[in-house]
């Protein structure tokens, strides 16, 4: 950036804000979904604000998971992923 044109700076910020919104919106939706129960998504429109089930949902997934739904406890999957990525990263660097 060589000149100091305020219009260009404004344009730059605008572009970036639009970019951030587009890029972050789906992840925001995922967060909203994680704070609500399943039935909120089966009727009507997708809610856009967080719901009350944050601790409950996270607690359940971390501890016991939905075994019959094919989702083992998340802490186990996190531990596995951590182990795998450390080994693979080290392996790739060494080799």
């Amino acid at each position, binding site marked *: *950036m*060589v*000149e100091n044109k305020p219009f*260009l*700076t404004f344009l*730059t*910020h605008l*572009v*970036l804000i639009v*970019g*951030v919104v*587009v*890029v*972050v*919106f*789906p*992840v925001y*939706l*995922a967060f909203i*979904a994680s704070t609500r129960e399943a039935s909120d*998504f*089966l*009727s*009507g*429109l*997708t809610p*856009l604000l967080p719901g009350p089930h944050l601790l409950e949902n996270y607690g359940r997934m971390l501890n016991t998971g939905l075994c019959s739904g094919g989702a083992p406890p998340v802490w186990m999957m996190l531990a596995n992923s951590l182990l795998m990525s450390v080994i693979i990263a080290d392996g790739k660097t060494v*080799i």
Partner: protein
Amino acid sequence: MQSKRTVFPHKGLPYLLLAPQLAITIVFFLWPAGQALKSSFEREDPFGFRTTFIWFDNYTRLFGQPDYLLALGRSAVFAVSVTLLAMSVSLLLAVAVNRLLRAGKVYTTLLVWPYAVAPVVAGILWWFMFNSTIGILPYLLGQAGIAWNHRINGDQAMLLVVLAATWKQISYCFLFFVAGLQSVPRSLLEAAAIDGSGPWKRFWTITFPLISPTTFFLLIVNVNYAMFDTFGLIDATTSGGPAGATNILVYKVYADGVLGLNIGSSSAQSVMLMLIVIVLTVIQFRWIERRVEY
């Protein structure tokens, strides 16, 4: 040009050092590829009890199917759209971030972490947003008078998967472009500004040619991604439909092999896919690399 060559005292040492990498390449790449090649010449029942060698039957059958030729075309459209869109959007964002000094860091952080989202998860998120009953985007589009139903309209389904695949790649390309842009010497830009060229001209005559190594690298990575890594995304959103509108090559390999249990045809398709990407990469290296200025 000076080239540095390392001289090893022991003759066999380089081979020994290369051995682990070679072993991994052989076991995890060459062996499965060999298996696929072998399977593509056979016809067998799913459990592997009866295997018959049928020469190039699987391949000739593939090219006789209009389905396969359509899938080839669709994969091309998909790969080109995703690559162009992802690279232009991320370049735009990278250039924008490059202009700002302090705020740039905040924006960079915000724009980079969607890269951590797995392709399947990205697919599900986009499925939610575009779902004709509960999705927020069809609702907004409906307000604007556009009826959205990607279950029936093949073009809309293709648009959906292109958008979802591009979204995933924006962060990755953005990171590389930011790094590339920072290596452009400011003295050049200042000199050009003094000579009277505006920001638009400066970008195209100085910046863009100087980031061409990054652009070239990202071109290859994006084409590879669009051809290979998008399977999870298609599976989660459109399952190759409607009427095969988003049935790209890599998804067809899965559909015929896993769902259809036709291992011979599926292997033939994966061999074809591998050949296509090899040819594309060779073309890119031969023709485009010449124009890259290091």
